[in-house]
């Protein structure tokens, strides 16, 4: 089992990663997911031993890796820029990790041909990396990492630089390859689909902090805070500032900026009781996913939030409609047959089973009805 305990890395006075805790179970596929500059690559380098942590510890199977140099960690890595040895042929690139282990020539040849066959790079074995396309180079890099049996495979955006079609295919191949290896994989990416489709568990990282660590389902359905919520999902989640008013005993919500004609959003009893008991957060925000909402052209008990159509993007089988609720923009997926026009008045069904509620950027309630009011905030 690979563990990071309170790992911090500082460059000068800047924190690259700060107090990171992470554990990867044996043969688990973990994805580290975050925007550029979040500390993803630094985390990988810390695991690999390329950089030493400023404080904290990296452990493998309970043993500290503090003084273990990279060459003795039995980890294998794919670098973002592939890091192929340009003076060696593809064959020798693939054989390079094996040569360090004094494996016989015939065995090396067998293993190289085996992995080349899987990755479909056999025709290029005698070429130098400089004469390969991006996709071919990337497969060579992957092959060089996967050719030997490592305890941990570290993949730094290995398929992010491929064109969409190839990326899609490689995603599947990568998952199959890693499953065959039965080893721990730590995969870094900034692509949300890649993260969701590959990972068994994923760590969402931002500004050097791990925002949330859990299964893709947990991350998607119960994001821990606004950052995770906004970063996961396509199209991205829309947010509405809301304010509390005192209803009949329990608090109610309406969208900020709609004071003249309040756009009310229902609170379920459990959440409103919790809110009325705890300290109310300074900033309340409702987050809704485009796929969770529906649009109606008439007002119904469910479709109670008035909105105005701002723009309609057609995807073919359905439309992505951007509507304006007060000053806020909300994206909704609508069936293609609705023929909505700009400035049409429509009604949204923003109810307790569709929205995520955030107080001071931290999650308070999810549609799955897990209420978590932070005390004394």
């Amino acid at each position: 089992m690979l563990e990071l305990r309170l790992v911090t890395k500082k460059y000068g006075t800047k924190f690259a990663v700060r107090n990171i805790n992470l554990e990867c179970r044996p043969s688990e596929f973990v994805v580290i997911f975050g925007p550029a500059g979040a500390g993803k690559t630094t985390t990988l380098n810390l695991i690999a031993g390329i950089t030493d942590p400023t404080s904290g510890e990296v452990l493998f199977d309970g043993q500290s890796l503090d003084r273990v140099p990279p060459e003795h960690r039995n980890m294998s890595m794919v670098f973002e820029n592939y890091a192929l040895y340009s003076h060696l042929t593809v064959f020798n690139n693939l054989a390079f990790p094996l040569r360090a282990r004094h494996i016989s020539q015939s065995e090396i040849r067998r293993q190289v041909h085996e992995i080349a066959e899987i990755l479909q790079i056999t025709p290029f074995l005698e070429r130098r990396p400089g004469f390969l396309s991006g996709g071919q180079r990337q497969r060579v890099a992957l092959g060089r990492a996967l050719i030997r049996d490592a305890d941990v495979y570290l993949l730094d955006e290995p398929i992010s630089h491929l064109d969409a079609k190839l990326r899609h295919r490689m995603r599947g191949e990568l998952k199959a390859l890693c499953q065959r290896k039965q080893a721990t994989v730590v995969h870094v990416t900034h692509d949300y689909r890649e993260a969701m489709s590959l990972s068994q568990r994923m760590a969402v990282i931002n500004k050097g902090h791990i925002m949330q660590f859990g299964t893709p389902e947990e991350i998607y359905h119960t994001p821990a805070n606004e950052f995770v919520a906004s970063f996961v999902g396509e199209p991205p989640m829309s947010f509405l500032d809301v304010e509390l008013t005192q209803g009949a005993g329990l608090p109610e919500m309406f969208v900020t900026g709609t004071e003249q004609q309040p756009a009310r959003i229902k609170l379920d009893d459990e959440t409103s009781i919790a809110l009325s008991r705890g300290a109310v957060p300074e900033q309340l925000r409702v987050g809704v996913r485009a796929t969770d909402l529906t649009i109606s052209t008439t007002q119904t008990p469910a479709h109670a939030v008035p909105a105005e159509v701002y723009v309609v993007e057609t995807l073919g089988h359905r439309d992505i409609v951007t509507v304006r609720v007060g000053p806020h923009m909300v994206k909704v997926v609508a069936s293609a047959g609705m023929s909505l026009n700009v400035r049409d008045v429509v009604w949204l069904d923003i109810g307790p089973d569709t929205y995520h509620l955030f107080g001071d950027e931290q999650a308070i309630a999810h549609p799955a009805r897990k209420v978590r009011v932070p005390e004394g905030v």
Partner: protein
Amino acid sequence: MQTQKVTFADLFRHLLMVVILCIFLFPIYWMVMTSLKAPEEVLTRPPTFVFEPTLDNYRYAFEQADFGLFIRNTVVIAGLSTLLVIAFGSLASYSFARYNPGDGHIMFFILTTRMMPGIAVVMPFFLIFRDLGKTGIGQFLALGLDQVGSLVVAYTVFNLPFAIWLMYSFFQDIPSELENSARLDGYSRLQVFLRVVLPLAAPGIAVTAIFSLMFAWNEFLFGYILTRDAARTITVGVSGFQTQQGILWGPLAAAAVVCILPMLGVALMLQRYMVRGLTFGAVRG
């Protein structure tokens, strides 16, 4: 069809180039011509341009003046000092490029030693080698006066700063991911240096080797002061044709031709790399 218009400016530019080339190449032309002339034709006025070529001057240089020995000495000295420069220089500049010890100050200090004129240290060198030659280890390594070893050391010392500075930029150009990758592949730091870094830096190392070879080949001052007969180098040998009886222009020219030929060949073969190496040094350094 596209016809290129030859403007007056183009014509003038090419004419200028021809004139400049003539000015620069004429001495070499004259040297080659002189080396092929019989003694009585060398100093005739007006100079002869058409004459019966002879190889007598070359024969004289090699048979009477022992020029073969000078060539052997120079080859040994230049070759050995270049090997040492590359061996020490590559390790030093690699560590400067990767670990930057001394925050750039040591690097700068090393460069400043290059700014020191040779004449300032030639006397200390003379005294050091005079005394070193009397010690056991000095005799074993031929580090005395008029011995090959002392010139090897002197040229190595003089070439190292420049070589470190030049190779530094080549090592910096190698992405550190390659080294990290090789270490994760299971190689130690030294193995990574030998199996990944050195092959990738090979063009830069070749350029550095050529420059240091040329310096050692062309060096005169140290060769003149530190040797007498046995370890005499080519450049000093050429100057030896200025005798008390007068200057032996024919053999001198022949020796000079032999002296520049190898370097000319090397330079022609590798001029593309050399330009790159020079601009690297200039821009990055």
